[in-house]
């Protein structure tokens, strides 16, 4: 329980936050960790924000929920507004600056900024922004090692089209590279 990490992903409905979290959970599971993934399913209705919480631990997970995640990955402004105050003291905040036009107010947090929408557009892969972010984040923090994640890519995307896997791998690697250079 001591090494239990809880990571929140939040953004608009279409930004791929749920699949980001699932990818991470898969990757962590494949490296032998206990994991859980839980979405907030806001409403039996259209649009709105989406978020999910991933827990990774080397022991049994009692609570897949928390008020205070260690890390919050926010892909848009409303998510920053909502979750900044919730992150654990000395936690981490990952911010998509393409969609967030303010700086965080807290000073005790490690803040990682990345303009994923621009990066994705540059790559000509607008739907890849979530994987770019994840690549960058893992490169920086090693919640799951980049090599391990890459190793399990095929397994995680089992059943998906070759092309899709390729595009996601490219986006993920682009994130890794960006982080190496910028963070």
């Amino acid at each position, binding site marked *: 329980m001591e090494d239990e990490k809880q990571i929140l992903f939040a953004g608009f409905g279409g930004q791929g936050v749920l699949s980001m979290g699932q990818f991470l959970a898969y990757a962590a599971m494949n490296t032998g960790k206990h994991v859980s993934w839980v979405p907030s399913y806001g409403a*039996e*209705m*259209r*649009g*709105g924000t989406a978020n999910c919480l991933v827990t990774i631990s080397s022991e049994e997970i009692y609570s897949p929920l928390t008020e205070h995640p260690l890390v919050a990955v926010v892909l848009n402004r409303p998510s920053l507004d909502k979750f900044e105050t919730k992150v654990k003291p000395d936690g981490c905040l990952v911010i998509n600056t393409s969609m967030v036009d303010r700086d965080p107010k807290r000073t005790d947090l490690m803040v990682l900024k990345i303009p994923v929408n621009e990066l994705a557009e540059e790559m000509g892969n607008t739907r890849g922004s979530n994987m770019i972010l994840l690549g960058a984040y893992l490169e920086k923090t090693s919640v799951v090692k980049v090599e391990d994640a890459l190793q399990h890519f095929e397994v995680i995307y089992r059943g998906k089209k070759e092309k899709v896997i390729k595009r996601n791998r490219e986006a993920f690697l682009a994130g890794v590279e960006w982080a190496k250079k910028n963070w």
Partner: protein
Amino acid sequence: MATVFKRPESLTDAKFHYCPGCTHGIIHRLVAECLDEMNIREKAVGICPVGCSVLAYEYFNCDMLEAAHGRAPAIATAIKRLKPDCFLFTYQGDGDLASIGMGEIVHASARGEKISVFFINNTLYGMTGGQMAPTTLLGQVATTCPYGRKVENEGYPVKMAELLAGNEGSAYISRVAVNSPANVVKAKKAIKKAFETQAKGLGFSMVEILSTCPTNWGLNPVDAMKWMEDNMIPYYPLGEFKVKEGK
């Protein structure tokens, strides 16, 4: 310059929660415009379904009720009987009206209840994420007919307008679509005719309105309009199926 198009009084200021390009919004506006033009907003009572339009009570600027899934016609029946001067309308999706609410709608029509039903046929369950509806087209994929709807498994899509037109109690039954400016204009005429049928006390009225669900169809809003034209209208022909004339 004169204003030729603005928000009708019978809508509140609330923004719709519908997905981009979802034609629920157009239909809401048409109903509201008819209430305005007939000057019956203050006598109107609307009943929302359970479906994407479950929040319609936030949009229509008149007395509104939220029904249980499928039961709007029963609720409308009681209110109309007790308050005959009110104008009753229900706004129901195809899951709501044609699946779970089949009993209520057929009987409201058979009894000739003097209510106006707006039936939004978008071939599936929008709100709950794209499950099959009785109106899903043959071959169409939905989350609960993942291999495409087949006659042998799920039977034929039901044609509610035709079905209800057979009831003696139905006074006005038509089918319209909102996929083009011309059709939108026709849709509004039909909606008004439904209210007029109610005003004249002729009996039950229903307008089936073909509507898009870009989200669950997996199409952009413009392509969704095209899909409607190419796939829905051939199976669900537009037109008037029953018109009782005034006394």
